[in-house]
């Protein structure tokens, strides 16, 4: 399977890249920090606030993890050997995507440690919300990764790829920010619908809703599809 071949090289790249490790450490520190102030501070045995706050780390972390995925192939010219070897463009994009996701899963491991800590300290977190919350984080991570890869597919400049992904992820959070200005209804409704953290809340409470699932899976698929098309069309120019 070619996806696996691309994924493996991608992982080597991530594990050798200082940026990826900085991101992993960011995940760990952010989780620890929020864990402390939200969970221990309030003595509520729930990791929900940890998830919610980790979202802000996502907005920086995913653009950083994904900015090089395709942009660097274009910049280094390696796209020319990759795209002329017998590999489909879709396999390239999926390989990159699962490479980012594999690294992401590894950086989530500290959360398991915190959960163990909570148990050991006598807390009794409900495993339902914990697991569905983790699942939600994976889905949200998948969408962020897809958006990041998409941004990386439209440019050979990693900084631009980072900026575009960052802005797009910020838009997904706009409706949560109190609005001082009156917005037209359609815009308000749209912003509410695309609001990513809103779709995560159900998962934190242990509820996996179909519309949330559809939101994450369809938008992830859409951005991966767009990345494939951009990868294709940029070679053609």
């Amino acid at each position, binding site marked *: 399977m*070619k996806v696996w*071949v*691309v994924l*493996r*090289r991608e992982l*080597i*790249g991530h594990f*050798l*890249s200082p940026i990826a490790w900085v991101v992993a450490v960011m995940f760990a520190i952010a989780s620890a920090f929020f864990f402390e102030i939200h969970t221990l501070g309030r003595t509520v045995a729930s990791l929900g606030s940890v998830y919610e706050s980790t979202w802000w780390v996502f907005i920086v972390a995913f653009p950083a993890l994904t900015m090089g995925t395709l942009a660097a192939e274009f910049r*280094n*010219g*390696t*796209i*020319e*050997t*990759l*795209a*002329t*070897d*017998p*590999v*489909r463009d879709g396999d390239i994009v999926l390989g990159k995507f699962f490479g980012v996701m594999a690294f992401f899963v590894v950086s989530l491991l500290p959360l398991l440690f915190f959960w163990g800590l909570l148990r050991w300290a006598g807390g009794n977190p409900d495993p339902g919300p914990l697991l569905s919350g983790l699942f939600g984080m994976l889905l949200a991570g998948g969408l962020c990764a897809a958006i990041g890869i998409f941004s990386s597919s439209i440019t050979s400049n990693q900084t631009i790829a980072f900026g575009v992904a960052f802005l797009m992820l910020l838009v997904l959070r706009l409706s949560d920010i109190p609005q001082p200005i009156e917005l037209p209804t359609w815009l308000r409704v749209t912003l509410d619908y695309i609001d990513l953290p809103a779709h995560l809340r159900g998962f934190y409470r242990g509820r996996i809703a179909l519309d949330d699932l559809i939101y994450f899976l369809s938008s992830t698929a859409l951005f991966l599809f767009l990345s494939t098309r951009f990868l294709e069309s940029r*070679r*053609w*120019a």
Partner: protein
Amino acid sequence: MIEAIHLKKSYGNARGIRDITFSIARGEVVGLLGPNGAGKSTTIRILTGYMPADSGTAKIAGFDTLTHSIQARRHVGYLPESVPLYPELRVEEYLRYRADLKDVPRRERSSRVDQAIERCQLTPVRKRLAGHLSKGYRQRLGLAGALVANPPVLILDEPTVGLDPTQVFEMRSLVRELSVDRTILVSSHILPEIEAVCSRVLVVNDGRLVADDSIHRLLSGFGDRSRVRIAVRRADAELEPRLRGIDGVEEVVQEAGAEGGDRRWRVEVRAGVDAREAIHAAILTGGGVPVEIVSVRASLEEVFGSLVRHEAVSSASGAGAA
């Protein structure tokens, strides 16, 4: 094995290719020659399936590079001009990666990688990071990557650019060695390059194919003229007019580089005429001594220059007529 049928590709501006048709049979080693920007890389990128042509068809081993892209790509090893590598991968790792991408079966993988390493003389650096390799080794690693699946067709875009003379020599002998059982297309803007390894040359200029012939025929049939260089000691003043009077001589040009009392001329003779004996007699008549009478064939540079000029003239006159 390689077919290009009426390929066209434009980039919005003038660059690109206008109409390129050729066909390369199994086992041929063909040079793709042209000045920078003539359309060599574009042609190659279409043949390797990297980009589609605006119109026309490209086929590798009978597979259309657009409609049967994956099958076509399985038959080609491609070395792009920039020799792109992943700096973070070791030589072995890179070749294993390329082998996997090229569908080399798992159990053959390490032997294929070893073969490619041996063939391209990468053994001393096989554990080294690609990012730390010298230019010569980078080039060989790129070639090894193209070779690792043992493809029947090799397409090499400017494989000796940036190499020192020893490395150029090594790269050429490697290409010659590989040509034994492969179809190879090598692009270059350096003529001796092509002369050294190819049996046939395609000349492109300004997006068009201006010549497609064997090197031998291209050189001997060039410009309907052959050329004789002479050096004469104690030449008399009347020698030049006498030379012009010889049947078949079309042009006599005095050349620089006279040493001592010797003077040099270039005599252009109509093709098929051997004027050397008459030239010899003409020199003796005036009491001069012929110290050199050499028949020279046109260099590929001259052929190329003339083809390109001819092309420019004919397209200019075509534009004038229209």
